């Protein structure tokens, strides 16, 4: 692997955003193919980061910063990919948000970060998101995964509303719906006809991969 890619790999593992962006630019200037950089530097770096978290060396902020560094590098590579009419292999496209009436944000954002770090394209719609917005976004992005967060017993019903809205829009078969948040659980997922439930952000990645057969 070239020196630049080695350094890019190191920068992502260390969660250094600015160096990661600069090294990505250097890589392009050195005529390294963006897909090569992604396959040889970025993806392996994120695997190492995941491993360090598993073994207890890394904590959530280390993980989030690594994901940020990866994102910064990807922002450099994406236009180059487009110009070459190439596409990054993403594991899937996820539309995620906290349902209507609910403003709890942190858990949902953590799940979004972990999914994008794991190689998914993630569209984060924020909080207090009406069912119709989820439907629009799925239609627009062609997503195959919908993530619904609800932290209140009162707003859990909003998760059901999104499943129904997807059904009505004829999009239900195109997507896997995963849900999460303090009051949700596997039984609730079953009750409302969602495909999966995860208790935390790590588990969320596993559940989504499993649902997509990855």
């Amino acid at each position: 692997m070239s020196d630049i890619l080695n350094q890019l790999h190191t920068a992502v593992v260390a969660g250094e955003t600015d160096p990661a962006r600069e090294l990505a630019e250097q890589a392009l200037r050195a005529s390294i193919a963006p897909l090569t950089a992604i396959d040889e530097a970025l993806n392996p770096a994120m695997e190492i980061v995941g491993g360090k978290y598993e073994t207890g060396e890394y904590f959530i902020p280390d993980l989030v910063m690594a994901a940020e560094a990866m994102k910064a590098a990807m922002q450099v590579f994406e236009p180059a990919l487009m110009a070459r009419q190439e596409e990054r292999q993403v594991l899937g496209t996820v539309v995620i948000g906290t349902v209507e009436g609910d403003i709890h944000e942190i858990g949902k954002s953590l799940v979004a970060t972990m999914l994008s770090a794991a190689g998914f394209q993630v569209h984060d719609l924020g909080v207090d998101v009406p069912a119709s917005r989820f439907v629009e976004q799925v239609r627009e992005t062609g997503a195959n995964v919908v993530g619904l967060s609800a932290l209140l017993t009162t707003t859990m019903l909003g998760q059901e509303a999104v499943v129904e809205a997807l059904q009505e829009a004829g999009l239900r078969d195109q997507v896997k719906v995963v849900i999460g948040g303090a009051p949700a659980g596997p039984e609730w997922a079953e009750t409302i006809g969602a495909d999966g439930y995860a208790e935390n952000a790590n588990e969320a990645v596993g559940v989504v991969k499993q649902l997509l057969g990855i």
Partner: protein
Amino acid sequence: MRPKVEFLSRETIERILSEAYDLLDDPGVRVHSERALRLLADHGADVDLAAQVAHIPADLAQRAVETAPSSFHLYDGAGQPVVHYGGDDIQFDPGSAAIEILDHGATQSREPVTADCVRFLQLADGLDALDAVATSIVCADVPQEMADWYRLYLVLLYTGKPVVTGAFAVETWSVMKDLLVAVTGSEEALAAQPRAVFDVCPSPPLLWSEITCENLMDCAQYRVPAELVSMPLTGATGPATLLGAVVQHAAECLSGVTIHQLVNPGAPIVWGGSPAAFDMRAGTTPMGAIETMMIDCSYAEVGKHLGLPTHAYLGMSDAKIVDAQCGFESGIGAILAALAGINMISGPGMLDFESCFSLEKLVIDAEIVGMAKRIATGMVERETPLGLEIIRQVGHAGNFLATSHTRHWFREELFIPSPVVDRDFRRGWEAKGSLTTTERAHRRVAEIVAAYEPLNLPDEVVSELEAIAQRVAQSAGLDHLPER
């Protein structure tokens, strides 16, 4: 001398407040309520209506702090002022809004239903250590749209203690107000002798969501006490530095006091919170972390410096069952809060990051509360001389047990625990079945619940409560309220 824990020097408090006032101006506070934004603009804040941001000048916030009362009472069903928010007085109430309940002996929690909530209320009513109750149990056997006010409905039917509560939506606040009016007689009576205080949570960082902002203004309008529950989560929704989190807490609370006092100057409001030292491994919000407790005690010092009543969520645990972690976290939190002189300490009974309730834990925590109140009373100079006279009088061979001095003073000096706390000889303990703390607590739960005496509310009050509940339940699609 009342013992005290203090984390902040006067100078540090002043720096915290000065930074908080600066934040109110730049970057300002996001306010997702047009009513509040216009009010702020009318009183000199620089408001960007499109961006929903208010830049609040320090003097506007300072004036609000001045008009806010430094103390007020909550009243019980008999009209007695039994809870005093103000000074260094301490009071305890159970933690709020559990979505799970843990049965004795279980390792898995489950969703609570009406019967669990009723049992909880019968228990809380009988535990003298608890100065107030809370709407602690969210019932799963009613439509979730009505989950928030339904808790209060049950509370008012089963106990006369004052209530710490909160709404989950804009509309349900007025249902809850109507329920309170049903027991107090009129809106005026509710304002004059408030029975309940409402938690309202700004969203970290520096945001008033529509829901909580409307709740805050409704409280002000009707002079129903509001309790600001600001909760920076260190390193996640607030600075990772503990003092940085206290600065953010102060800014959020000051913005709340400002909006509240502009609606109705002089309406009662509490400087409270539920921050947490975010766990960087699990991504959870531990209420039992020592740093959580340090932030709580520190912001309470800031509130006291401003002359406002204080509150905190302390005395809880993140353990999943009633075990050693459960005991030590709850114990440390309650003692620190008591020594910090926090007026309302909410937490007893709560496990698992404020999400799971245990009746056995509530009973154990009542013992902790007893000890916490005792330590806060401190070393009292009961007589002069302090000991000279009685020691001389009893003399060298003396038996203090045989003096009326002992018989008189031990009751004053000792907190006498219930049998939940084991102080027996080993053989005595074995003879009673070698029970663990939790097993002893389980027995006590049953005893207190069995001894519960109904409230004897006037028939017309009960019918009024039921009429309100039935009417609103019907609009939530429930024709018959669950059996009680």
